[in-house]
Every structure is written in structure tokens, then in C-alpha cells.
């Protein structure tokens, strides 16, 4: 087992502990009141994530260094994304006000990411099928950010331009050779981590649930895009994001009780 694999296992163990710690109070909250849809969907998503993490740990220990061709943990991750999206949908108040721009952005951005995943892994059926829930998730996040006015105009423009610039760097990296390739790599990773950190700080400061889910989404994108040690940093950020999302979900659930 390599050092990276060991660290990956360790991070996943931490993730399972965090998820168990999240699940215990969440289930208690659900049992108390049957109107807590947000917490119900969130808890079910966390349950899927927990089993997925268990599977990952078991796989890394039992079959270290072998590629997972098609695994159940991807189905669990997919369901987690769907459940998190459903949890966001229960919060949205602007159910009939869909701006076409949001849909177009979501469609183009996720499609570009799926294209990149296919180019990196070659598993096109898998990447397309398991990429589909991300359309729903990103769309819900964007709708939430817009309706709650969590970002100002400049920040919104940065959030539109930035991700596409990253996609551009990553596509450039695919077709460039030599030094140019390294430059594209550096620019892509720097931008991904800059956006992830910015989303993280902004979401923790404001406490906005959609931004926190946005932070979670960015950590996933970083995990899928980055190799080796950068992947480990993204995984660690994902653990933090899971926890901050839980805090926001809990706050929203309790707020609903007061309403």
C-alpha cells in the first residue's frame, strides 16, 4: 500500500466518523417531527455517503492498487447527490421562476466536466450515467444562490467565468504538449483550489445553506479533477464541507420549527 493510499484510507476513516457523528443527532431530529423533509433527505444522503466511504476503505485495504472498474460506491454517491438536491428543493421558495440562463450554465458546465471525465478515464457510459445527478444538484445550488441573493453581481460573474476558465485550462492541458501542459495544469489546479477556498470561506462566514452546498460541490469537482496529494487535500476539504453543510441544514430545520 502506497503512502497516498494509506492517507486516503485515513481520510475516509475520518469521514466515516464525521458522518456517524452527523447521523446520530440528525436521526433524532427526524424522529421528533414528521415535517423535517430537509433533514430526512440530508440524513439519507449521509447514509449513502457513509456506506460509500466504508466500501472505499474496504476496497483500498482488500484490493490495494487495483482500479475499480464499476462499483457500487458510485451508485451510492449518485444517490447522495440526488438526495442532497432533493433536500435543497424542499427549501426553494421560487418554484416557478426558472431563468433559462441557469439551465444553460448548468447544462454546459456539467457536460464539459463529463467530457473531461471521459477523456481522463475512458469510461464513457459510467461517466455519463453517474454525471447526470450533477445537473440536478448544480441547478438547485444556482437557483438557491440566486433566490437567496447570497452573491453580489461581481461575485456571480466570477462564478460564471471562473469555472469555464478552469474547463478551458483542463481542455488545454489535454491537447498541449511539453511545458505548455505544465502551465495549463498549474493554472487549472490553482484556480480550482482558489474557488474551493473562496466558497469555503464565504459559505462559513455567511452561513448560507446554498453556498455551503456549493462548497461541497466544489470539493467534489476538485476530487474528480486532481491527482495524488491534491486529491487528498480535496478529500479533507470535502470532510469539512460535509460538516458545514450539516450545520446549515440543522440551522434551517430549527428555523422551520420557529416558523
Amino acid at each position: 500500500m502506497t503512502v497516498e493510499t494509506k492517507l486516503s484510507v485515513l481520510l475516509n476513516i475520518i469521514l466515516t466518523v464525521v458522518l456517524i457523528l452527523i447521523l446520530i443527532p440528525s436521526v433524532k431530529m427526524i424522529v421528533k417531527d414528521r415535517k423535517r423533509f430537509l433533514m430526512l433527505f440530508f440524513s439519507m444522503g449521509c447514509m449513502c455517503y457513509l456506506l460509500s466511504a466504508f466500501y472505499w476503505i474496504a476496497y483500498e485495504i482488500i484490493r490495494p492498487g487495483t482500479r475499480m472498474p464499476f462499483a457500487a460506491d458510485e451508485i451510492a454517491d449518485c444517490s447522495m447527490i440526488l438526495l442532497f438536491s432533493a433536500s435543497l428543493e424542499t427549501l426553494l421558495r421560487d418554484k416557478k421562476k426558472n431563468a433559462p440562463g441557469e439551465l444553460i450554465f448548468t447544462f454546459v458546465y456539467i457536460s464539459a466536466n463529463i467530457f473531461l471525465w471521459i477523456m481522463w478515464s475512458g469510461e464513457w457510459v459510467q461517466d455519463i450515467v453517474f454525471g447526470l445527478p450533477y445537473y440536478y444538484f448544480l441547478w438547485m445550488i444556482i437557483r438557491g444562490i440566486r433566490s437567496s441573493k447570497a452573491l453580489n453581481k461581481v461575485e456571480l460573474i466570477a462564478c460564471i467565468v471562473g469555472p469555464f476558465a478552469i474547463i478551458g485550462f483542463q481542455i488545454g492541458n489535454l491537447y498541449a504538449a511539453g511545458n505548455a501542459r505544465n502551465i495549463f495544469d498549474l493554472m487549472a489546479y490553482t484556480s480550482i483550489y482558489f474557488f474551493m477556498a473562496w466558497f469555503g470561506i464565504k459559505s462559513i462566514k455567511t452561513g448560507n445553506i446554498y453556498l455551503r452546498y456549493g462548497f461541497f460541490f466544489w470539493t467534489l469537482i476538485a476530487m474528480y479533477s486532481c491527482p495524488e496529494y491534491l486529491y487528498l487535500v480535496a478529500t479533507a476539504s470535502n470532510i469539512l464541507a460535509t460538516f458545514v453543510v450539516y450545520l446549515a441544514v440543522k440551522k434551517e430545520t430549527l428555523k422551520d420549527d420557529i416558523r
Partner: protein
Amino acid sequence: MIYAENVFLCIAVPLAIAILFTRNSARRMTVSFLTGMLVCLLSAYIGGFLQLVSRYSSENMSIFLSPIVEEVMKFMPVLFCLYIFEPTYDELRLTAVGIGAGFATFENCCFILTSGAQNLGYVLIRGSAVGVMHVVTMVAIVAGLHLLKTYKVFSFSGVSGALALSVIFHSLYNLLVSKPGVSSYIGYILPMLFAFVLYLLNRLSKEFNEDQKA
């Protein structure tokens, strides 16, 4: 090689006749048990086809694809029953348990015919691990569906979540038992442990519902 269809017919005919002389929950259980056996046979066909197409080894097949095929196949009749007959929670759980038990029984029959039943330890492990696992995943699915119905949020996301939980649990079991040693022991204990946890949760929710009614 065994002739699974012949084994199926041999076990299914007396059960099919038994349906004529049973009523209510006994009939429901028998029909579900038969359905579970049929689903097991169909899963084996689909699994065999996928193995040919994907060119996976038997081990990779059992770790990666079989759990998905089997859980989806077991889930179909439950979903059908839920939408067509609109059963109560107890009726649905009975159906699911019957399907899980039928599936596990038929699978165990085929395995025992293939590898023999001389080794009592092996037979016990097969019964208490794989057998229980098929029942437990079905109970978990039904509990998930019931939760969604109770909270009136029965949606695609919720249903897929319940199904995913059973798929990943099954996959985790198959992965753990794929290599001998500590991992396989954990795998063998897992279904029993999960069955116990589900039983406790069921009791707790019953007590909670009674308190709410009172």
C-alpha cells in the same frame, strides 16, 4: 453444471399448489417467496449475460455487477406491489421479506448443489450470512420506502436512495468475503448485525408510534 430451471420447477410446483389452499398473509408470503425464487433465476440469466459482455472474471462480477443486478431485480416486484396494490406497511414488509427469503433459498439451493453440503461450517455460514443478507436488504428497502411515504416525500431521489443503500450494503458484503481472513469474518457477521440493528429500530419506531397515538 446444474440445471437451475429444473431445480426451480422442483421447488416451485408444491409452492404454487400451496397458494390454492392458503389465504391472506400466508398466501402473500408464498407468492412473494415464489417471486423471490423467480427473480433469483432471472438475475442469474442477466448476470451471466453481463459477464459475457463485460468479460469480467467471476470474482469481479460478484463484487461489482452482481449486487447491482440482484438488488434491482429484487426491488422491481416490491415497487410493482407498492404501486399496483397500495399495500399497508406490514403487507409490504411481508412481501419484501418473502421475496428476499425466496431469493436467498433458491440461491443457496443452487450453491449447495454445485459445491456440496458435506461441510456443515460452510453451509451454516452460507445460510446465516448470504441468506440473511438478502432478507435484510429487502427489509431496509421497505423501511426506506415507508419512511418516505410517512413523511409524504415519495420521490425518485428518495426511492433511488433506498435502493442505493441496499446495493452498497450487498456490494460491501461481497467485497469483504471475497478474500479469506479478517475481512471475510467481518463480512459474515455484517448481515446478522444489521438484522439485529433493524429489529431494534423496528421496535423503537413501534414504541414511538404508540406513544404518538397515546
